[in-house]
């Protein structure tokens, strides 16, 4: 029932705001919907902590602690974004952005597009986490792409259409690879299960007999899945759509792409990873993952060092974090899995903050290019600018912020393994990435007063920022016990112990 | 009690002999240059005259200007109690060995240089700049030489050094000792501001070093500084003679020992003076920027001395 409610709420919210006629109503609907959703997600997490796992419709929907975690994070991000979005789009409307771009279109229609598509988008993501059936999960992930294409082309600029096209095309190809992988998995299970019913693709069923699956097929399947869901997660070299999409989409959407969709894609990957390790042992998967992980972190480096737009900078940061999580998966072991999920959690809480700051700055400067900005934002933006710097440090893994803890855990797992060079290389790359970020953002935030008019007036934008920032700071010193419990259980799922 | 008497004795000896040495050197130099030159007692007369006169304090100077003469004089006097002169055990050897000697002299120099700057005249600045530079360059050479000695005696305590030297009188013929002696002699020349490094007799601005710093001094202050300078010179010479050729150092403070010790001591001083005069008269003053080369030579000698202790 809970599961159903979780899925139903966003759908309803979407439909309602599609029907709604004025902005305030839509805002209200979204806020209410996502607040309710977050509460339900928390309830689900609690229930999963108690009962171990929840399922309905004889296992069509099922939530173990891993899915519960992903649902919780998705709901959290969605909530944060919906709060921020209110202020963000009002600002846009004040600047007459919509009229400028979409010819003849009124602001309200653009807003309706956002407020009705976002819930669908969220719905799809939740379905990813809750679908027990790998096929359905694929369908859901494909749905996230479809729901978000128009959110990316939201502003209707030439560039945003370009971004949307690349997103759709690359995403489409990637997902068809994922589908191929799914088919092969089904096939390799087929001989074992001898069933043609839905259960043949139910993860909970598959994971039990993964050991007898056909090895070669499973190899191919995992390769295809890795490439497929890797594309969705933006793992190099399938990452190319990310900077474009992130820099063109409206900030709340970009934040959701970076913080929530990434989780869903990795979630899909994890499910198959577990099957693969059960079938082939950890060796095969981890050698692939190490390559792709290091590649992703490495590919981010030059673009972080030499970058002209801070929106794109953020995109590369999330490519780099995707890589880190992939590496964590590769390092394996209980510690690696735990590190990965900690990183997943902390990342999807910290990243939106960074995006919101970037959004405020962009709306303030009317550009996202470094060379157009004169620096010294701290004078005109006494709230956003310092938090921007703080979020940058947080996201580059500087203590006391929480991402350092997860990265440290991951590195410990890495040094626990047989190969020492990947973690060492990872450390070096991370240092360089930090340098790039610090140089760019410090130049933006600090400096003499360029004499811009004061910003940071809009309470929605301001307080969503402050609230999220305080969450980030608190996480650095205190991770709530139940949440850690949930993460630990989820890590056992990843580690294949549950 | 057994410290105070020797201390007084040695201090007074130093105070009395030091101007004499200056006088002797001047006179000898004159003779070498076939001039008659002043009498060897001239320095005493100078001091007497200066002490009697009143003095003029530049209005640009601060209290440092007045403090410096005391510091210079006192450091020199104190150092003179730390090195064996006529007897192997110096009265205050416990208060500081050769390192203390070097650093106390450095303290005096530090204040002198400050005083040079204090008056605000360009000569003062010029003098202190050059003085500090040259002494800085001289430092490593001096240290290497001293280390050679200290290592041979494995102690930095000068009395110990002297004792061990007395123990084996002919050690100064060892190559390491010879080299070290050479190094220290060059340093002595540089530190006491003698030709070819500096010319104590000149007030020709371009070549002045030590004199330039004290241009503004007059009367008793000047006397203190001059006396301090000659004390320092004597101290360094004593260091040289007593650590390398410790002949006649009396083992303890008894009258007979002191007498013979003093005799030997004066003899050795005379020889050193001759050496210095020889150098001064046979060389011309160097350009300032040639001096480092000379001191580099000294450093090399010292380093060789070290390595030779390793070889032989």
């Amino acid at each position, binding site marked *: 029932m809970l599961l159903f409610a979780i899925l139903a709420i966003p759908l309803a919210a979407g439909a309602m705001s599609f029907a709604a006629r004025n902005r305030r109503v839509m805002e209200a609907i979204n806020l209410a919907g996502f607040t309710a959703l977050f509460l339900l997600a928390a309830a689900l997490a609690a229930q999963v902590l108690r009962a171990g796992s929840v399922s309905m419709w004889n296992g069509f929907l099922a939530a173990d602690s891993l899915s519960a975690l992903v649902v919780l994070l998705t709901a959290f991000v969605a909530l944060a974004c919906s709060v921020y979005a209110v202020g963000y789009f009002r600002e846009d409307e004040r600047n007459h952005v919509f009229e400028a771009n979409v010819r003849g279109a009124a602001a309200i229609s653009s807003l309706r597009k956002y407020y009705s598509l976002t819930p669908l988008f969220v719905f799809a993501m939740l379905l990813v986490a809750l679908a027990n059936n790998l096929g359905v999960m694929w369908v859901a992930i494909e749905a996230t792409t479809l729901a978000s294409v128009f959110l990316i082309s939201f502003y209707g600029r030439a560039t945003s259409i370009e971004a949307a096209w690349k997103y759709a095309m690359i995403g489409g190809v990637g997902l068809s690879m994922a589908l191929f992988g799914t088919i092969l998995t089904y096939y390799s299970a087929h001989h074992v299960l001898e069933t043609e019913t839905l259960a043949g693709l139910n993860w909970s069923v598959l994971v039990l007999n993964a050991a007898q699956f056909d090895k070669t097929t499973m190899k191919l399947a995992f390769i295809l899945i890795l490439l497929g869901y890797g594309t969705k997660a933006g793992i190099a070299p399938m990452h190319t759509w990310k900077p474009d999409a992130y820099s063109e989409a409206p900030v709340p959407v970009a934040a959701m792409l970076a913080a929530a969709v990434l989780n869903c894609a990795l979630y899909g990957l994890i499910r198959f990873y577990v099957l693969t390790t059960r079938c082939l042992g950890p060796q095969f998967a981890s050698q692939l993952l190490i390559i792709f992980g290091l590649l992703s972190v490495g590919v981010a480096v030059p673009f972080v060092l030499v970058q002209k737009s801070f929106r794109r900078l953020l995109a590369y940061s999330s490519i780099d974090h995707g890589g880190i999580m992939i590496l964590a998966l590769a390092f394996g072991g209980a510690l690696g899995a735990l590190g990965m999920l900690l990183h997943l959690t902390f990342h999807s809480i910290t990243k939106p903050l960074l995006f919101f700051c970037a959004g405020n700055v962009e709306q303030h400067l009317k550009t996202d290019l470094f060379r157009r900005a004169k620096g010294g934002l701290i004078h005109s933006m006494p709230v956003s600018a310092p938090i921007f710097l703080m979020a940058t440090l947080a996201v580059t893994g500087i203590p006391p912020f929480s991402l350092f803890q997860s990265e440290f855990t991951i590195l410990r797992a890495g040094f626990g393994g047989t190969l020492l060079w990947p973690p060492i290389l990872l450390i070096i790359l991370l240092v360089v990435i930090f340098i790039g970020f610090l140089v760019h953002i410090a130049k933006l935030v600090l400096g003499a007063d360029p004499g811009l008019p004061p910003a940071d007036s809009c309470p929605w934008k301001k307080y969503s920022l402050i609230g999220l920032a305080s969450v980030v700071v608190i996480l650095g010193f205190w991770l709530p016990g139940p949440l850690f419990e949930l993460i630990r259980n989820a890590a056992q799922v990843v580690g294949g112990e549950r | 009690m057994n410290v105070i008497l020797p201390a007084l004795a040695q201090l007074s000896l130093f105070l009395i002999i030091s101007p004499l040495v200056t006088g002797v050197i001047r006179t000898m130099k004159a003779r070498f240059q076939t001039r008659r030159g002043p009498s060897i007692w001239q320095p005493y007369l100078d001091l007497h005259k200066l002490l009697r006169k009143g003095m003029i304090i530049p209005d640009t100077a601060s209290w440092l200007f007045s403090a410096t003469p005391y510091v210079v004089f006192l450091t020199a006097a104190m150092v003179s109690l730390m090195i064996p002169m006529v007897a192997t055990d110096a009265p205050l050897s416990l208060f500081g060995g050769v390192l203390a000697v070097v650093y106390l002299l450095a303290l005096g120099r530090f204040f002198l*240089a400050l005083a040079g700057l204090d008056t605000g005249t360009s000569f003062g600045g010029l003098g202190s700049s050059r003085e500090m530079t040259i002494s800085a360059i001289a430092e490593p050479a001096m240290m290497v030489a001293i280390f050679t000695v200290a290592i041979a005696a494995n102690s930095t305590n000068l009395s110990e050094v002297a004792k061990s030297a007395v123990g084996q009188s002919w050690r100064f013929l060892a190559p390491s000792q010879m080299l070290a002696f050479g190094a220290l002699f060059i340093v002595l020349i540089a530190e006491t501001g003698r030709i070819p490094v500096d010319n104590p007799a000149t007030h020709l601005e371009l070549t002045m070093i030590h004199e330039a710093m004290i241009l503004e001094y007059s009367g008793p202050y000047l006397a203190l500084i001059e006396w301090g300078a000659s004390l320092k010179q004597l101290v360094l010479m004593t260091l040289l003679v007593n650590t390398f050729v410790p002949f006649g150092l009396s083992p303890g403070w008894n009258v007979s020992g002191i007498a013979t010790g003093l005799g030997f001591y004066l003899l050795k001083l005379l020889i050193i003076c001759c050496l210095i005069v020889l150098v001064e008269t046979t060389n011309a003053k160097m350009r300032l920027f040639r001096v480092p080369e000379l001191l580099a030579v000294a450093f090399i000698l010292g380093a060789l001395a070290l390595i030779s202790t390793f070889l032989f």
Partner: protein
Amino acid sequence: MNALAGYFFFGGLLSYAMGAIASLITGRSGRLARVLGCGFALAGALLETVSSWVALFAASDAHWEIPAGVPFLIYSFRLDALSAYFNLILSLLAVAISIYSFGYLRPLDEKRTVGVLGFFYNLSLLSLTAVFTASNAFFFLIAWEVMALAAYCLITFEHRQETTRQAGVLFFVMSHAGTGCLLIGFLLLNSLSGSLDFSSFAATSSKLTGAWQAAVFLLFLAGFGVKAGVIPLHIWLPEAHPAAPSNISALMSGIVIKTGIYGLARVLFEFLGVPPLWAGTIVLAVGVVSALLGVLYALMEHDLKRLLAYHSIENIGIILIGFGASLMFITLGHPRLAAIALIAGLFHTLNHAVFKCLLFLGAGSVLHGTHTRNMEKLGGLIRRMPQTAFFFLVGAIAISGLPPLNGFVSEWLTYQALLAGFGTTEKLTRVLFPVAGSLLALTAALAATCFVKAFGITFLALPRSKEADDAQECGFSMLTGMGLLAAVCVALGLGATSFLPVFDGITEHLMGVRMSGELVAAGGWVLTSGSARGGTVSTAGIAAMFVILSALPALLWLLWGRKGHRHIEPTWDCGLPGLTAENEYTAFAFSKPLRMIFAALYQPRREIQAEYEVSPYYPTAIRFDSEIESPFEERLYGPLQKKILAIATRMRGIQAGSIHAYLAYIFVTLIVLLLFGVRP
């Protein structure tokens, strides 16, 4: 005993924390924020002083473990002798700086930023304490980075100047690179010992051998070396320390760079097992090079604070000479000598902390009074700011290693250790010790030269600018802060012998010997080099002799000087009337001889432009400027940075905007992996 130390320790931490929060909250009213920030810091510092003093002489280590609300993190503090010693240094300085800051920050009252400053000041004190007392690698790293973060924010406090921002970024970048090394090092140790606890590292140190030992040694040397500012990892230091507000510069130069020294002491002597001989040699060499180059570059500076910053590099070098010698002695099996060398290094750490802090505070007062750091614009301050001048002079004498102040004592111990080192081996390596000693002597002499310049040009003679002319003596609290440190300089100098027992705990823990008994002779009057025969010195005695001997000039007065009286007259200056500031020797001129002597190092470039109407011999205006090369920036880091950026720019071609290319990447990857997947 430990409980007592604990109360004071956590009381101090709490006070720091409250100071941070309080000054952040009350940021709106500058005055309140300033008073609260400095007040809490002062209180905390006092508490910490007591606790570390108690812990220094405690029978057993005080050890507390507080579970943190974060996975794998335990706030585990261990107040063993070494930690307590460094914490003592920290809190000592913190007391002085906090008092000083009351007055120094007053001009900021109108601005709201003072609250931010107070926050980060207290935060850095907090993190520094944590760094010195953490006994768990994870916690240590967090404290380490928080400290760097706070330091960054403090350095960039006056971020309106471009140079300040760059300095801050440079600092943070270098520091983070260093942290990377530490991270690798600690994780290597962790994978060897299976735990992140320091005690387990120490326990398994014997297992650390061969390549691993070498790797760990080099990683930590680099990682901590960056923070300590050893050459060639020093480039951030002369930029960052002057950029910060002066009280912060004092903190940075006084104690923040000492965290590197602490780390080295911890790792080299506790976790590294028996180091190879080359390790000690490297440390010794690094020390000598840092000391010499540090002072040589200091000599060329005319910016008072930059000059002081370079001297920090020099003194770190002197400290490392002691450490290096100590390491070599351990390898050669002479624990007593090792202990002496270590004591020399640690004692110099304290001494440098004190007098460098004093000097920076003095520079701060000068800046406060004249609003310039350029020595060429200063002068004559000894009349306008007499107390400041006196305190600065004390600091200058101390840092020049002149008796009877504290700098002399630690340098003397270093010499003794080096001399004794000659006897420890028959190999040619033994020549290293005296050579190092002589270079140390050169360093010390050059340092004296440099401070003759620094003090003489800044404080003596005539003011060279209007700012200097109408300078004002600074307020009571600032003078108190400086006076306190000056007093400590004197006390540590004269009372060195009675301070030595402090090191017993440390040397016993690291080398298993207690040295204070052997280092002190003649009823506590005399400091020896381990044996009374080896060499002795008595700063107290020297001071006493000064007093006694001053009877001598008095005597002369009685004999001669009564008739003579003193007149104050215009300066004679070889008869040239009307001495003006233009006649004065400048800082630039003062260092000219050395610039020419070491031209090979400095590569001085000069250009002279003379404008004249009649003939070149009657110029109407002359423009002269000269600069020296900074080799590490120009030869090493600059090209490196250019190279990296060039490569990065070239690699950006990956993302050229063509969707076909993007699809092709995926396609190729797919084919390759498929073939890789089906290979038999």
